[in-house]
């Protein structure tokens, strides 16, 4: 089975891109399933179901979605095996832009959109910088100049990645992405023992553990202070 990890900021167009890409894969008789990770809410699973795509969703709730991803990905892969999928796609929204769910030797795709602002490539960490393919969406509603500037900013933080423009509404570019994703040679039936591409941030302060009171005496563990000058 092929495993592909999709990631990207909320509302960047991940689901639309994946749906259009699967449409192209289905025409080649490649069976695809999706597992959607989110934090508090998603109804994207309904969209996949409507398109007749096997889907599971996982809500991380009180946990960081990327940590949740790492602790569940093996079970997710087993689900894909059981369904005898040719390709399993995971989709997760990066929330703080610091983590990335990419796994070494598993294709990682980052979806970001032209509307998110010119400094976005600078703000997103490993989720963008360590992706193999960067998909830029919503190019049909910004000017050509903004598309070009945005793409050049992306390539300066991740020159190694293949950058593609995809229109999630018309699907322009999605067929092309599908040809880059499917690899007959790749056969992953477990991710046990594989490694994340980038360590997740070291957290665990009292607030991670449910503390709600504000004040010095309640701050414990990994606490860092802002430099406010004098």
């Amino acid at each position, binding site marked *: 089975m092929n495993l592909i990890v999709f990631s990207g900021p909320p509302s960047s167009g991940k689901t639309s891109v994946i749906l259009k890409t699967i449409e*192209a894969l289905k*025409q080649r008789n490649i069976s695809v399933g999706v597992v959607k990770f989110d934090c508090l809410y998603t109804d994207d699973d309904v969209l996949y179901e409507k398109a007749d795509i096997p889907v599971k969703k996982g809500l991380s709730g009180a946990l960081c979605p990327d940590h949740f991803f790492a602790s569940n990905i093996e079970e997710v892969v087993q689900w894909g095996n059981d369904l005898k999928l040719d390709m399993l796609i995971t989709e997760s929204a990066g929330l703080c832009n*610091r983590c990335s769910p990419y796994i070494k030797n598993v294709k990682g795709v980052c979806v970001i959109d*032209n*509307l998110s*602002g*010119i400094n976005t*490539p*600078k703000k997103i*960490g*490993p989720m963008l*910088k*360590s992706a193999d393919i960067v998909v830029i969406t919503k*190019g*049909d*509603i*910004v*000017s*050509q*100049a*903004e*598309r*070009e*500037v945005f*793409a*050049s*900013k*992306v*390539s*300066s*933080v*991740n*020159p*190694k990645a*293949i*950058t593609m*423009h995809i*229109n999630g509404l*018309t*699907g*322009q*570019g999605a*067929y*092309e992405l599908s*040809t880059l994703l499917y690899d007959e040679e790749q056969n992953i039936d477990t991710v046990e023992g594989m490694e994340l591409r*980038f*360590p997740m*941030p*070291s957290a665990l302060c009292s607030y991670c553990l449910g503390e709600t009171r504000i004040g010095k005496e309640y701050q414990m563990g990994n606490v860092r202070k802002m430099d406010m000058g004098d």
Partner: protein
Amino acid sequence: MLERWIWVINMMNLTIRQLEEKYPFVIGYFEENKLDVEAHKDKTFQEYLDTLSEDYVEEWAINKEKLAQDLEIYIEQMKEFLGISEDLGVNSLTILPGHDKSGKEEGFGELTINKSEIVSIVGPTGSGKSRLLADIEWTAMNDTPTGRTILINGELPDKKWRFSSNNRLVAQLSQNMNFVMDLTVREFLELHAASRLVEDVEGTIARIIEEANKLAGEKFNLNTPVTALSGGQSRALMIADTAILSSSPIVLIDEIENAGIDRKKALELLVSRDKIVLMATHDPILALMANRRIVIKNGGIDKIIETSKEEKELLVELEKMDNIIQSMRNELRNGGVLHA
């Protein structure tokens, strides 16, 4: 291979100061990756990376190994990009037929469009215009659903057109496009010029604003925020900017709305900059300006029609009517009263 290897070793031995002198664009790389190299100009890039503490690396999610590798790739890409903009590149685009959605062969032999030429595209919504544009953008090689093949200068194109983020074959102008950046026209053009590595930034900006103002019904200046431009002004700026600053040799246009812009001059400007122009439109004035038009039906090119002499004569009449409407529009804008 050996040559590249020597080049990499030599480059990695340069100090940051030497790198910045030799390849000024690396400054952008340092900036975008938030690397503060100011105090380390006499070190090599690797020596600089070695100064970053473990805490700092963790704090800012830095991957030293990747940064060093990426710098190599970045410099190579930018060098290639500069090389390509020097040689003119694309002289012609050829489309070889594939088939429509039902598998029926497309109704033309081969279509070659030369630079400075306009071809229009007509067909109902959902007929396959997006697919045609995607085939061109991806330089299809009988490996897309339509089975079409795209040739550049009569030859199978280099794969770089597919994957390079700085050398896109196609620039697009669509009617939904808006400026979203919070910048003045000057700042906006400076940013675009910087990403294109233009040397004469001032001259280029002056040129664009001059051309844009020739197209726009109402003039604007460099200190206007781009988001405050009217629809017509925006379109004028986008077209002038695409004509002069965009590196893409092919321009795909999805309708140009009629209001506030001289569309004939806009097309003339693109053509004068050696662009190959493909324009999806159902506006007779635009469609007939092209000497040929592609008719799309059921996902395929049904036929290619040469604009007839009669149609060209009709175009002259249509332009006269259009001029009447435009002048009335201007009259109203200036507070005038219209007469029959």
